[in-house]
């Protein structure tokens, strides 16, 4: 039935547009995101799955290719100092939108849409998840039909933050004009099926289940996309997703298939596909909650109002917890060649990566015990340390994934050796990374002492990523738990340095500040980096030109995907 439909659509598209002979001729491509997609609006969800899914439909002005090189998407070209696009005082940047560009409903893309996107994300009460992309932006205005000018508060060294990369795509003003501020969450029709400029259009959206797309008849390249329809299925787990591509061949592409290396090797023997790892900025890390999380605190828990955490606010405890972890064994057990032990949150690009912090790389259980002894945490009769009636007993949560559960158990075992009791909890990934502000189990609410997940930065520049650790980005009920500072790290000196980063000129100066920021983060002990890992995707052999991109969305070149013959 589905293939009949696909053929019908193919014939239909061929008959209406004979000039576009190559568009929509390859039938259906099937993508599997085992973390199901809950929205198509990346401004209302910080999750990678939503950002990636939305990137099929809505696009930014420019993106990054697989080598980290910026290329124009909706923009005619990349503004630079040389071509006059970036003002000499570095206070503004002027983008030109491609002429003749159309939304999928046939209307023209204009500079007004770009300016509107900025107003949409910065509107008070909207809880925009990508707010940090627009930090330091004073205004975005449409100069003429196709020219948009971004003005910054002060001279800015890296001007390619706003509207570059999948985190800040352009949305259509006509569709979202009534969805500003507090009304943003209520515009479900628009949030589930945004009108875009990308190669595909949402045909049907079932939240947390399946999204079906058809080729965009107004896409700027008449020969693309090669596929007539695209199905993005959600659900299952990482192993099932990898199996569906590598062994049964039911799907063409599965994202984020983190499974034990020995299981992956067995699946690859079927010879139906391959694993591609976007090995770059993704760091699996453990966050220690600086705030109290006792359930009796009710709505205040895990926010600043709850007060400091009774034991994790002690730096000795945090350092001991980090020292007790043997990162090499975690890599061996869970990631194999796809991971590398690290103590830093910024692992690449090379000149930004700090190499100053390596005290955590070698496991030191006696050292950790000594630290805790000196800090006055005395071993109790039950083998758990305590001080003034506060026991070192923690709830440690992460998403449901066998590699993460394995990591949890290993970590629990080591922590037991230093007198720390750990209760493990795992939450289904769809819920954990979901954007539902009503669920108590999301990673942003962090209703646990300790949590683990991985994230990286989507572009080659970590400015937005690092800005997310500012005090004012701490998620709370006031912003609908949308803030990006999941770790709840807060240090005024850090915030000042972030300001310096935005003022810095030249890559070398930025690199110095970025390294300093990285060191502040990891030396604070609230963020324990574990493994710098790839973001592995499995790709069927019959899918041609699907390239993994560590710098942008994994579906960055979906318009080029074709069926191999």
């Amino acid at each position, binding site marked *: 039935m589905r293939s009949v439909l696909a053929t019908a659509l193919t014939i239909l598209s061929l008959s209406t547009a004979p000039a576009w002979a190559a568009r929509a001729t390859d039938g259906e491509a099937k993508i599997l995101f085992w973390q199901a997609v809950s929205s198509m609006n990346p401004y209302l969800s910080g999750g990678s799955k939503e950002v990636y899914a939305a990137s099929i439909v809505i696009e930014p002005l420019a993106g990054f290719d697989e080598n980290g090189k910026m290329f124009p998407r909706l923009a005619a070209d990349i503004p630079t100092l040389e071509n006059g696009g970036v003002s000499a005082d570095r206070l503004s940047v002027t983008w030109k939108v491609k002429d003749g560009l159309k939304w999928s409903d046939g209307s023209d893309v204009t500079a007004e849409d770009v300016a509107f996107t900025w107003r949409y994300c910065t509107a008070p009460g909207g809880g925009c998840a990508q707010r940090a992309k627009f930090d330091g932006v004073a205004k975005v205005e449409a100069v003429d039909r196709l020219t948009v000018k971004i003005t910054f508060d002060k001279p800015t060294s890296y001007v390619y933050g706003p509207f570059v990369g999948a985190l800040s795509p352009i949305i259509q003003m006509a569709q979202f004009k009534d969805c500003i501020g507090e009304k943003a969450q209520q515009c479900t029709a628009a949030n589930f099926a945004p009108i875009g400029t990308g190669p595909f259009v949402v045909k049907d959206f079932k939240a947390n289940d399946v999204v079906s797309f058809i080729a965009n008849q107004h896409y700027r390249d008449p020969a693309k996309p090669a596929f007539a329809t695209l199905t993005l299925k959600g659900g299952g787990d990482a192993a099932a997703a990898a199996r569906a591509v590598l062994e049964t061949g039911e799907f063409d592409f599965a994202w984020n298939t983190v499974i*034990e290396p*020995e299981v992956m090797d067995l699946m690859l023997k079927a010879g139906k596909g391959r694993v591609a790892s976007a090995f770059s900025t993704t760091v699996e890390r453990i966050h220690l909650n600086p705030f109290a999380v006792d359930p009796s605190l009710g709505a205040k828990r895990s926010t600043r109002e709850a007060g400091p955490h009774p034991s994790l606010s002690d730096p000795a405890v945090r350092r001991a917890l980090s020292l007790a972890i043997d990162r090499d064994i975690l890599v061996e057990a869970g990631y194999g060649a796809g991971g590398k032990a690290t103590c830093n949150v910024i692992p690449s690009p090379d000149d930004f990566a700090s190499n100053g912090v390596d005290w955590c790389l070698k496991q030191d259980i006696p050292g950790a015990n000594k630290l805790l002894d000196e800090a006055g945490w005395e071993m109790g009769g039950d083998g758990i340390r305590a001080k003034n009636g506060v026991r070192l007993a923690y709830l440690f949560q992460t998403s*449901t994934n066998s590699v993460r559960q*394995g990591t949890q*158990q*290993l970590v629990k075992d080591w922590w037991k050796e230093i007198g720390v009791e750990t209760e493990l909890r*795992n939450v*289904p990934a769809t819920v954990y990374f979901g954007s539902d502000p009503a669920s108590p189990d999301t990673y942003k609410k962090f209703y646990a002492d300790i949590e683990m997940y991985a994230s990286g930065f989507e572009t080659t520049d970590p400015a937005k990523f690092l800005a997310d650790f500012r005090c004012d980005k701490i998620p709370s009920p006031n912003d609908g738990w949308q803030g990006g500072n999941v770790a709840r790290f807060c240090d005024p000196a850090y915030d000042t340095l972030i300001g310096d980063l935005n003022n810095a000129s030249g890559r070398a100066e930025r690199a110095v500040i970025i390294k300093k920021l990285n060191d502040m983060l990891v030396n604070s002990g609230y963020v324990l980096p574990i493994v710098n890992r790839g973001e592995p995707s499995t790709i069927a052999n019959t899918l041609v030109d699907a390239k993994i991109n560590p710098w942008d969305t994994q579906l960055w070149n979906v318009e080029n995907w074709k069926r191999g013959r």
Partner: protein
Amino acid sequence: MTDAVIDQPVTAKPEIETPSILFWRKFRKHKGGVAGLVVFALIVLIVYVGPFIHTIDPNKIDIRAKNQGPSWKHPFGTDNLGHDMLAQVMAGGQISLAVGLTAMLLALLLGTLVGVLSGYFRKLDGPLMRLTDLFLALPLLPLLLVIIMLFRDTLRAAFGPETGIFILIVFVIGVTSWMHTARIVRGDVLAVKSQEFIVAAKSSGMREHRIVLRHILPNVLSSIMVSATLGIAAAIITESALSFLGLGFPSDFPTWGRLLFDGANFLQLTPSRVFWPGLAISLTVLSVNYIGDAVRDALDPRTQAR
């Protein structure tokens, strides 16, 4: 043929048969039931006594001995973190069986209470049976997920993580599986209630609760017992399903369902990780079902009348 059977008791040495001796004599005739009892007893024995013989700590991680096949040191092999699978299966069995038994008792209590009340008191019949229908119509799994999400933290704070989740799971399985018992018991109570000895008891001025306890309950015991055995099996399976979904007990807390869930990905590499817990669940459920069959036969008054 029939004559021979009838003749037997006559030729047998006359002895006083208490109901329990009679029950046991009849139970023994059911070969499946006896086999089930032996298997179930064996499983219980292994699960509770086994850890004293095979003394490896089920939560001991030995990463260097991961993914091993069966050996003398690890008869069921090891998992990908180096846990000993035999120790894990035994520890898991203790929890799974404890959950099964307690959840069954809870369901039985609720089911019998509702069944007897609605069967015996006409006024309560309508409301209670509609309540039963309501529970039957609820989709169980989503309900379980919501209950677990809502009450997990409160119970955890009150009883600690392990006992808290144990109480929660037992409660959740118990309150969602009493309905069939209630319906069966109600039917039986209705049938018994209209018999002469109840009328006689009533006219002699016996109090209602005495009638229920002395005359009605013993007569519906056979169906309650059958529900009980089926209930254990259902509870173990529900707990397995919850664990299999990654809910229920924490991931380092082995139960048979959890072991199955964790082992599924490694089916090709170390099949024993799935085989043993799977076999344990199947054998327990099967043996308990056979025991239930035999109990029903033994308590059936029609066989008693011979």
